[in-house]
């Protein structure tokens, strides 16, 4: 990596800069509001580096969740990364030690940039990818430190700030909804989880374990239908 590839990568990362600064600030602020020292915001953003994962992490820390619960929730939350990795297998080939960092730093936003970006002429392709990944990570770290310090210094009533996690998931859901023709998985996810919540109760989020089992089983049963041709909407033939 060199200055040239960083300079070439920077303009592409500006949207992520804006997004990560603000989402990172909210994360840091939440963690400080939950009573944790700003250093932990920095540690989490350097080592975990996952937006929704760290929002969830604030809640897990706040309730001092058992390690097994934390591992399970992080795992299912991050399941989507499986798809990202699959489509980056070739891009990351031949990157040597930097491949490890590329895998570590493959967030939703970095994935979106890497998947869509054109490498400018005269710039080494691998340096360019690495620069994008590194810049995004730095924005995230900067945002969470700013938020954590602000949250520790400014004492306003922060009751309700944890709603940011709900808001983040709702935003992801809207985007998934708009980019897919198939909405059955959303209904399956909501209904299956709701059923488990009513049966097992809300304590510790343990109801997510049977819920996940229902989701996977349900999706496997729905596979012939979901992978089939998309049915025409009602009245579609007339349009």
């Amino acid at each position, binding site marked *: 990596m060199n200055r040239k590839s960083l300079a070439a990568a920077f303009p592409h990362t500006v949207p992520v800069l804006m997004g990560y600064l603000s989402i990172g600030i909210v994360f840091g602020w939440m963690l400080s509001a939950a009573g944790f020292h700003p250093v932990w915001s920095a540690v989490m953003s350097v080592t975990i580096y996952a937006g929704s994962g760290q929002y969830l992490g604030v809640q897990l820390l706040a309730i001092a969740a058992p390690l097994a619960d934390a591992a399970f929730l992080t795992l299912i939350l991050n399941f989507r990364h499986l798809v990202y990795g*699959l489509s980056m297998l070739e891009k990351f080939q031949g990157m040597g030690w930097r491949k490890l960092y590329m895998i570590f730093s493959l967030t939703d936003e970095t994935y979106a940039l890497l998947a869509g970006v054109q490498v400018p002429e005269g710039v080494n392709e691998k340096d360019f990818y690495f620069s994008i990944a590194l810049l995004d990570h730095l924005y995230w770290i900067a945002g969470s430190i700013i938020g954590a310090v602000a949250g520790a210094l400014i004492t306003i009533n922060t009751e309700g700030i944890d709603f940011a996690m709900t808001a983040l998931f709702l935003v992801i859901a809207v985007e998934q909804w708009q980019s897919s023709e198939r909405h059955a998985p959303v209904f399956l996810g909501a209904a299956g989880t709701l059923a488990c919540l009513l049966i097992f109760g809300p304590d510790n989020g343990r109801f997510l374990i049977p819920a996940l089992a229902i989701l996977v089983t349900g999706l496997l049963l729905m596979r012939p239908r979901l992978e089939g041709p998309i049915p025409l909407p009602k009245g579609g033939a007339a349009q």
Partner: protein
Amino acid sequence: MTVLQIAALVAVMAVVTFLTRALPFLLFGRGGEHPKVVLYLGRFLPPAVIAMLIVYCYRSTSFGAPSGWAPGLIAGLAVVELHVWKKNNMLSIVGGTILYMVLVQAVF
């Protein structure tokens, strides 16, 4: 929590997050066909999981007094509306959260 307990939780989250990102490279890095069922789940499980997590976020909703359900419902609808309208993550998340904070602190 002690420093050690916090560090352990953070470490678990870091390791699991890295493993989920590394898994496809470990499993399929050598090339060849990707199992179709994995690709299928990779495509359709994420929206189901996000729906599940939204239910998780609302798990403490109670249907007695309006303060148990109204702030979450109103702010949630606002986030969706804002995002459909402006498609700006920052605006939807920060706007919805501030609205929620105002609702729980000052209105209900």
